[in-house]
């Protein structure tokens, strides 16, 4: 009995400290000015990388920024729980500078789970000849779907990224490459396009310990910034259109050979492609009180016929977030604080189709419902509470395992 009480007390103190620390820092006058971003209404998802709060000082030629994501988690599957954990999901630093007129540079470096994974997620220069014609080269985020481009923790009221944007499209997906992007404005409309050639995935897409087709497993090749595994480029293209009143819709497509099919000039395998088609949308209704965001993605992968159907040749995922702002006013001393409630629904089928042997459906399906409550002291900081209900079937479609996860976390730009 006594032990649980001291444990509770410790938890209480820890929580209080974390929260008061945020509270305090938000009230501290910053040494540098934060250059806030303008209304998202005139922006597309493709602008997300520049549309962030940066710290600028008159003495420094660069603007600095970053964000953190951390949370507590308590989760259990079918009566088995690994207990309670604190998770430091990621620390991301970004730096940008205007090198010369119409030449911009930005880099984003991410530390995941402490220093377990350190990635350069973005590191590219933009040369603008015309708003319709900007050349970008370096390590760039493949513009597939919207979440991949617009994944900063503080923007979301949910702690976990949607499975469509992790298991189907492996956020953050970035590769070395180059290409063009541009925008066109007309009255209430903005249209944008992006087209890049980059290095692609590797053979692990269909040969990995997850035991399922996974673009995520095929993106981690340590050599990928140096060589394209297949020796051929991957194409990614996206068009998006936004109306200031109605919202944004984007369609994107990505295709490339993922396997090593020749070595020293000799053919060692057939060429096999991975193709992704994605659609995304977001809209704000009821005077911005109701925000709806969603994405659909479909992956098609060439799998050799004598390999195993455990690795599916088709998969898809979709999610929708609905966020409603309950109150937006001065709260607890913050001038434009906001309290949101929301719900995320998601569905993923990692392996579409039927078994050749039985003509019965191949399982490996997931679904989740995530209610959330989020308090935003300011637009750039969020304290969020999520309660995640998840179900998953195995390859054969046997009765699903059920997982519930309770999470309380913070995410903030700094």
């Amino acid at each position, binding site marked *: 009995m006594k032990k649980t009480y001291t444990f*509770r007390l410790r*938890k*209480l103190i820890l*929580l*209080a400290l974390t*929260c008061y620390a945020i*509270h305090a820092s938000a009230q501290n006058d910053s040494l540098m000015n934060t250059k806030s971003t303008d209304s998202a209404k005139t922006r597309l998802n493709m602008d997300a990388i520049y549309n962030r709060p940066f710290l600028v000082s008159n003495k420094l030629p660069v603007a600095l920024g970053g964000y953190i994501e951390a949370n*507590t988690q*308590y*989760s*259990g*599957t*079918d*009566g*088995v*729980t690994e207990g*309670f954990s604190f998770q430091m999901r990621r620390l991301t630093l970004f730096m940008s500078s205007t090198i010369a007129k119409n030449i911009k540079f930005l880099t984003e470096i991410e530390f995941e789970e402490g220093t377990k994974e350190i990635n350069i997620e973005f590191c590219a220069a933009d040369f603008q000849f015309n708003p319709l014609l900007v050349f970008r080269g370096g390590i760039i985020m493949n513009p597939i779907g919207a979440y991949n481009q617009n994944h900063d923790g503080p923007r979301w009221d949910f702690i976990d990224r949607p499975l469509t944007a992790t298991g189907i499209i492996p956020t953050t997906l970035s590769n070395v490459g180059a290409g063009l992007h541009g925008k066109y404005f007309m009255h209430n409309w903005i249209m944008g396009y992006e087209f890049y050639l980059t290095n692609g995935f590797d*053979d*692990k897409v*269909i*040969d*990995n*310990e*997850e*035991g399922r087709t996974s673009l995520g497993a095929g993106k981690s090749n340590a050599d990928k910034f140096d060589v394209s595994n297949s020796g051929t480029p991957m194409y990614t293209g996206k068009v998006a259109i936004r109306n200031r009143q109605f919202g944004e819709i984007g369609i994107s497509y990505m295709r490339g050979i993922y*396997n090593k099919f020749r070595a020293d000039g000799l053919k*060692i*395998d057939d060429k*096999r492609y991975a193709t992704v088609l994605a659609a995304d949308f977001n809209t704000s209704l009821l005077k911005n009180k109701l925000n709806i965001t969603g994405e659909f993605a479909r992956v098609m992968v060439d799998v*050799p016929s*004598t*390999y*195993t*159907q*455990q690795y599916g040749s088709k998969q898809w995922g979709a999610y929708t977030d609905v966020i409603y702002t309950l109150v937006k006013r001065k*709260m*607890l*001393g913050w001038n434009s604080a906001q309290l949101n409630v929301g719900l995320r629904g998601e569905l993923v089928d990692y392996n579409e189709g039927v*078994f*050749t*042997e*039985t003509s*019965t*459906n191949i*399982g490996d399906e997931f679904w989740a419902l995530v209610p959330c409550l989020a*308090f935003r002291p300011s637009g750039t900081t969020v304290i969020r*509470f999520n*309660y995640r209900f998840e179900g998953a079937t*195995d*390859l*054969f*479609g*046997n*009765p699903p395992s*059920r*997982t*519930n996860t*309770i999470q*309380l976390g913070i995410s903030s730009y700094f």
Partner: protein
Amino acid sequence: MILNSLFAQNKKMKNKLAFTGILILFVIIFNACEKFLPSAPEADSVMDAPIDGLTYEQNKLFLEGAEEFDEVYTTETGLGPLFVSTSCGSCHAGDNRGHPFTALTRFGQSDTTGNKFLDFGAPQIQHRALPGFVGETIPNGATSSKFLAPIASGVGFLELVSDEDILAMSDPLDQNGDGISGVPNWNTIPGWVKPFKDAKVKNGKYICRFGRKGATYNLHQQVAGAFNNDMGITTTFLPNNPFNYLTGTQPAPPSEPEITDASVNGVVFYLQTLQAPIQRNMDDEEVMKGKAVFKSIGCENCHKETLKTGPSPLKGLNQVEFHPYTDLLLHDMGAELNDSYTEGSALASEWRTTPLWGLGLSADAQGGKVFLLHDGRAHSISEAIQYHGGEGDKSRKNFTDLTESDRNALIKFLESL
């Protein structure tokens, strides 16, 4: 009034109170977390727990073995190049019966004189292959049979049934005149398989008990064989990769075995200490009636309800009775179940009596449908019984002649297993 103005005076105070209130709310929620998590399935609806009475150390070993059992192997960790499936768990989902997707094909032996197709990679086809390799097909002129994975739960108990007990159940000349003979599979065992202390030996052959034809001696042989033949993974026991006669390539074995002896032993320990399936609704009247029918129409002559283990250093396995509904013997099941393929001293029409435990939970492991008998050809329990010929013919007739209520009770009993 006074209170109100006090609060108005000190808005900051109010803020902090609200703030602390929210905090306390979250702490309460987190402390009550367990109540918000999904509950465990009933113990008798799953079969992946360890036997009772393991020490902490043994629990850890069990968990390591379980992890290995479910590990999906890849090129990097030794899979293939030729294989049938990528993990033990993919064929033995939930430790119960396997799905036709992971069925394997054996070929090349049609009588007791041995396998004539060893040069063609017999006895097992690895029809799947890593990208860039070619899977095998059955060579011309070879007979073959498809095998679905039998239930893995409870095999630790089956391994410990003494040879003496098995021989006692066998009746090769049908001296009791019940139409059922039942013989063990006397088979040669490889040098790296250590026979048990009180093993019976006949002409250098041992009583084998695992597999559809009962041709495998013990769990160690089963596991090392599965790694090699089912997944193309080499061990110190079986250091060569399966080869493809079609392309004539047997990839040179890696200089080191692809997995360690410790991993093999871990999986063996997992299987040995894996629980047996638990019967459900034992005391239900209809179930009890069905059980009586099961015995009266002669099913139990092969599907023996109770066996006992010999001595074991593990308390939970030491000389205990258990209820697998098998005699671990081979029976001639007639022409319909004769695939013209066999192993060891079994005839092509002979099969080891399938343990019936876990039968009622098969659908939860086989994707909602059931696939019974060695190759999954039966899609219901009654259909499986209807395939019983040869020594099983009499009990099949008895089953057909049952009144509807007796038949329903029997099925209900079988579903409770």
